[in-house]
């Protein structure tokens, strides 16, 4: 089964998705990731249902009557964040639970509401299939420079290259 992070990485960078899924993870000591972890620990102190692991595969930050909630440090990757939320909503719907999603960019004091449409559902289904195809590959997708590479925890890994002698 696909995790929420994998779904997000699928939208951000397929190479990152592949590496992460093979255990070649770089998140551990990256400062931005540590910051995110602390943010998650402190988020939603008033909600009781926090950090809910569903079927051992994806973890919801928090859940209330109306919303699945997800907390993010910055809104730099809105499309990927939205897709991750859609995936949660899709999986919950399959289990007979219908909710809306709410993404909180707490540092920017901004929220984003997400609703699952039929079109989204088929997009998610297509993404799940593609993720499996990507992970079948014995090697990672080739390095492709993206504008946000330098901010990524995998930057040093990807760009540890030698020039021509």
């Amino acid at each position: 089964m696909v995790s929420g992070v994998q779904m997000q990485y699928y939208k951000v960078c397929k190479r990152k998705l592949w590496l992460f899924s093979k255990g070649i993870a770089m998140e551990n000591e990256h400062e931005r990731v540590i910051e995110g972890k602390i943010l998650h620990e402190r988020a939603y102190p008033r909600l009781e249902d926090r950090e809910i692991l569903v079927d051992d595969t994806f973890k919801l930050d928090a859940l209330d009557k109306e919303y699945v909630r997800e907390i993010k440090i910055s809104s730099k990757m809105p499309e990927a964040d939205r897709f991750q939320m859609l995936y949660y909503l899709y999986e919950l719907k399959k289990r007979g639970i219908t909710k809306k999603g709410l993404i909180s960019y707490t540092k920017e004091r901004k929220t984003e509401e997400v609703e699952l449409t039929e079109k989204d559902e088929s997009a998610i289904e297509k993404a799940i299939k593609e993720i499996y195809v990507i992970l079948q590959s014995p090697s990672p997708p080739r390095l492709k420079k993206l504008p946000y590479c330098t901010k990524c925890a995998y930057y040093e890994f990807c760009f540890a290259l030698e020039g021509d002698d």
Partner: protein
Amino acid sequence: MLRDHYIFSNGRLKRKDNTLYFFDEQENKKSLPVHQTDNLYIFGEVDLNSSLLNLLSQHDVHLHVFNYYGFYAGTFCPRNKKVSGFTVVQQSVHYLEHEKRLYMARSFLQSAVHHMLRNIRRYKEKTEQYVKNIEEEAKKMDSATTIQELMGIEGRIRQHYYQSFNAILKQDFIFEKRTKQPPQDPLNALISFGNSLCYTTVLSEIYKTQLDPTISFLHEPSTKRFSLCLDLAEIFKPLLVDVVIISCINNRIITQKHFDFLDGMVLLNEEGKKRFIKEWDEKLSTTVQHRKLKRKVSYRYFIRLECYKLIKHFIGDEPYKPLKAWW
């Protein structure tokens, strides 16, 4: 910024709640910032207990132990959190297939030779003949078909290389032949001590990655040592250790009085070790602008980048090209 701490005195390392203290024999207390520590090097005779090791494990601190003579004894490695079975399987493939293993072994040596030549070319007038000899010997690497052959070439190159130190070094330090366990003259003592520091530094960087330190290519994987460290150290010994040795001697940071002469064995004394480590630490934190990362990178971090390049090679991403200092 994470850093390393070195303990030379005898005493006791103690955990009190979540803080780390060192008590010396006179019961003087010194606190060590466990949050900001990457490695602890123990040269003195130090007592410690399991509760302390648990604290080190929580903060991912490596504890390296050296014996009375300054030789590396072993490391306490916190539970390794970076696990990728996939990577280890692929790393093994590159050991098992002869051509692949040969490629790795040759790459490490090419980098080593590049850095050796880089060191002695700085003293051109004095080392011309040695440079020629090494270049001549290095040509044979391309046609070598076994690891033993490569090792033989490496041994001969290193002999020429260390001989050239006699032309470079300003004080009365003389190289006759390489002697280890125990080193029999001051220069050998410096080389041995420096190499063991290099080895533990490489180990602590490998541990931050998914590589398996026991699967090596140039050196036969052994049960006694993390032999991948020896492979990678080939690259970094001439780039880091030898440069520090030459500068310590030629700038008179270390002189004959910094050695203990015991029958047939020569060792750096405490003051000598301290001086060497100070220079070593400074070298590791010196930065260079990386031409691909477009960032400043410390010499220590270059070791990590080399690990990343190995992983990329093993998983079929980017063929391994060893570091050849370009600056």
